[in-house]
């Protein structure tokens, strides 16, 4: 179903000829996605009818109003990584917000930034560091949009212990609603600035995103304020060593360690105690056993060699931690706290990871959030499962269950044998809650592997329901209907919201929900 010519022309008038296309080659590059095979059985999901590159909120608004007028659906994305960014079927145009890429403001004293959709984590981070600040980095990587993570998509990341979760980092928001009206959340709506996203009265953040995000199903976010956090290091952070195994020299007020414990229970206790001691700048299972080699490999071929060289037992119950402090005194306090916690829990520092060059690489991985896409490198692709935001004890239980569930898929050769344990995650807001998601690596080009991965993801989602393990991060189409019945029928309320705010169902509902009938 191609766009009618007159409609195309109307959209073209809004963004300009250079910024709209319905060329098949362009459309296909928006249909292709990681995990597309789980939706369509191929690497391509549906083609959008056209792709538009608006450059400001006015253009976004005009597009959405036109969509409402002419009955066209739209789906916007920022950096656009993952199948939830694709259009849900025929008759949908794609808004690529790439041209909206400004850091509008960094308010140094009040510690927040205002960003447009296409500012990526790395960009904001380096500009913030120049002002003694830093931003929460999602585990997906610093190549992801800050705004998308704050407004529309999950937000786990190992900086969470010090910098929270994306949902709780968002301040005021500029939001083009599905009907084309511009809603400015919080202080912005009254013209008072970006420092607060809530009110007057009830906070409309309540319908904006939740834990996972509306995933492009409820309008388009065009600017937002995000909290920044202290950076105790120098304003610039040159790398050392040879690309791509660069290390980041550890600044004076920072330390990086890998800590190992005798059991899951001891690890769990230690993580609780770290949170209570209010220490830790980055913390979590950044390198579960199956991922340890990626710290010092540059290709998949090195992986198996490294896997054999590493003493896996040391990493079985391990976490990585960066300590960061305002002063040498505070760092000393943090070091002593870590020593105490290790002593109480039978833990120790993994000496292999104390080698300066290794530590510097680890520091780069954790601060720059650059390494996680390696999970694509080993088997071709990956999927994740479980991983609710919940108590750390439940997160650990989840990790154990994930490992058990994976075993049979590993034994039948369907997924990569990563030792069974790729439970990745950490805690948020100084240990307030945590998450461990169980990652699997598999070869989507191998039918048995793909089938096994699908089965595992399904089985783990069911386990989350059956065993009350919290709300998993299974971002799939229809997830609201899948999990709603076991979660207070929230999907029914979502349908009402969809109907009220998107009367013409123009904002692509495929990863959100169809409106109430």
């Amino acid at each position: 179903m191609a766009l009618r010519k007159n409609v195309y022309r109307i959209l073209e008038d809004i963004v300009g000829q250079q910024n709209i296309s319905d060329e098949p080659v362009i459309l296909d590059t928006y249909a292709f996605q990681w995990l597309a095979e789980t939706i369509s059985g191929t690497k391509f999901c549906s083609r959008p009818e056209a792709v538009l590159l608006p450059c400001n909120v006015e253009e976004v608004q005009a597009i959405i109003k036109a969509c409402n007028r002419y009955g066209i659906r739209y789906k916007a994305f920022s950096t656009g990584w993952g199948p939830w960014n694709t259009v849900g079927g025929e008759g949908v145009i794609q808004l690529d917000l790439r041209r909206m890429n400004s850091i509008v403001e960094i308010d140094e004293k009040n510690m927040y930034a205002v960003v447009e959709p296409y500012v990526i984590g790395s960009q904001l981070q380096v500009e913030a560091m120049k002002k003694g600040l830093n931003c929460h980095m999602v585990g997906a990587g610093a190549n992801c949009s800050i705004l998308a993570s704050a407004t529309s998509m999950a937000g786990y990341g190992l900086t969470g212990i010090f910098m929270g979760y994306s949902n709780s980092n968002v301040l005021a928001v500029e939001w083009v609603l599905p009907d084309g009206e511009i809603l400015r959340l919080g202080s912005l709506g009254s013209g008072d600035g970006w420092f607060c996203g809530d009110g007057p009265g009830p906070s409309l953040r309540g319908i904006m995103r939740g834990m996972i995000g509306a995933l492009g199903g409820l309008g388009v976010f065009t600017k937002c304020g995000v909290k920044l956090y202290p950076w105790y290091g120098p304003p610039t952070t040159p790398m050392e060593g040879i690309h791509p195994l660069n290390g980041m020299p550890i600044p004076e007020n920072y330390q990086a360690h890998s800590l190992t414990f005798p059991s899951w229970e001891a690890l769990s206790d230690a993580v609780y105690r770290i949170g209570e001691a209010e220490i830790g700048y980055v913390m979590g299972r950044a390198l579960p056993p199956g991922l340890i080699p990626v710290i010092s490999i540059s290709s998949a071929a090195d992986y198996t060699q490294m896997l054999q060289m590493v003493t896996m037992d040391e990493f079985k119950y391990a976490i990585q931690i960066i300590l960061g402090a305002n002063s040498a005194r505070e760092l000393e306090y943090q070091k002593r706290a870590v020593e105490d916690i290790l002593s109480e829990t039978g833990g120790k520092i993994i000496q292999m990871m104390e080698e300066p060059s290794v530590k510097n690489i680890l520091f780069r991985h954790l601060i720059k959030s650059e390494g996680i896409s390696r999970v694509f490198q080993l088997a071709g692709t990956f999927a994740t499962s479980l991983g609710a935001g919940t108590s750390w004890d439940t997160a650990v239980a989840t990790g154990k269950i994930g490992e058990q569930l994976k075993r049979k898929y590993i034994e039948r050769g369907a997924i990569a044998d990563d030792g069974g344990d790729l439970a990745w995650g950490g805690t948020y807001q100084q240990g307030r809650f945590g998450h461990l998601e169980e990652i699997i690596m598999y070869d989507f080009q191998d039918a048995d592997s793909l089938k096994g991965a699908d089965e595992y993801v399904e089985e783990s989602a069911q386990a989350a329901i059956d065993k009350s393990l919290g709300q998993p991060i299974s971002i799939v189409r229809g997830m609201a209907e899948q999990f709603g019945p076991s979660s207070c029928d929230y999907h029914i309320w979502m349908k009402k919201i969809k109907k009220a705010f998107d009367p013409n169902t123009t904002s692509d509902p495929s990863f959100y929900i169809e409106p109430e009938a």
Partner: protein
Amino acid sequence: MSEKEELAVIVGDANVSDTPEALEAYSRDESFVRRMKPQLVAKPQNVDEVQEIVKWANSTGTPLIPVSSGPPHFRGDTVPSLGGVVVDLSRMKRIIRINRRNRVAMVEPGVTFAELQLELKNEGMRLPMPLCPRSSKSVIGSCLEREPTIIPKYQWDISDPLLCTEVVFGTGDLFRTGEAAGPGSLEDQWASGQAQTNAMGPFQVDFFRLIQGSQGTMGILTWATVKCELLPRLQKTFLVASQRLEDLLDFTYKLLWARLGDELLILNNFNLATLLAENPDEIKSLRETLPPWVLIVCVAGYERLPEERVDYQEKDVMDTAQRFGVKPVTAIDGVQGSDILEALSTVSAEPYWKLRYKGRFHDIFFLTTLGKTPEFIACMDQMAAEAEYPGTDFGVYLQPQIQGRACHCEFSLSYDPANPKEFDKVQKLFFDASKALMGMGGFFSRPYGPWAEMAYSRDGQSAMALRKVKGIFDPNNVMNPGKLCF
């Protein structure tokens, strides 16, 4: 059956009342909001009763006005706008669960700060409180009002310390928000180790944020979990006095940046005097001796290395102070930091501290950023002068929020309720100043009483969006109608 009889079936005869005294008590508060008597007062004891009441209200078209805290009330949100039934939740007083490992407590709406703090103390914890709340203040009521707490570093999100909730929506449907939504019952969740510590969700929605700040217009909370903190083993309070507010701000910003200090707030001399003194004369006398502005910073040590923690924080505070040319001390002009800390750590003695000077007060509060507060204060000074309200008689309270991203700015106007002239003067000043401060960019995020119309007229889109939300969760507009924008 009469309405009273119908409600009595739900909550029992003893818990529904239409005595003139009861109705009178709920018909007004200390604000300038117009009096209106409810028809009945119902006091449910559990969620089933609440749900039945809401369903009954929908079937009869009766407005419901939920009330959690005991009197006195100050903001007009519990005064009926259109009559109806007051749902007084004070009988729902269970502290359902305290979980030390996950630093969380689950409480019903009738639980007050004093009651919860006592139980938490036994577990080695505390709950960050608003500035010296009145003894009858409900924990959940305070959370729902987004009342600022005095420890900004623990306020990651403006919604803190509120976490998961159980709510009966205006439709009568029961819902649990955040992690508590499921999968599984609460008991199932507890069995798997969950403690309802994650407020977000379920999944793609954050409905607790719609209930919070709604002044009872969306539904009725029947329990909530709240974020608790460790009880300090050791605390040290520093006071930084200044003639000019501006001289404290950069230092305060730096403390917030470095996460130094737990309790962190700025009071003017009037507010500090009122907080510490017991009667008007003492307040006047103390006000005269206090410096115009005092920054209060408290450092604490908890279970781990408390001495070391206090030591490094104290030294870091002092080093920072030196860089900014200010002097933290432990006492000023006869006021000990420890006395202030005590006042900050407990609920108010009777009468409520803000009532001590003249018997009544009215607050004007809004959000801004710390750096802008002097402009608002200058405006307030000027307006007070124009209104011939003594500049020495209003309190100023500045409370950094969201770990320093915003600042709660509060002016407290005291007056003698028996003096009609003073009443009129303060009422006029309240309206005029509210309007002026809003015009300057003060964000009235919690628009009580007359502020609602003013705030929503500045943000029509939010009002429209909220009406849509209201249409979903309370389609018959039974929940506290006449407040906010519906």
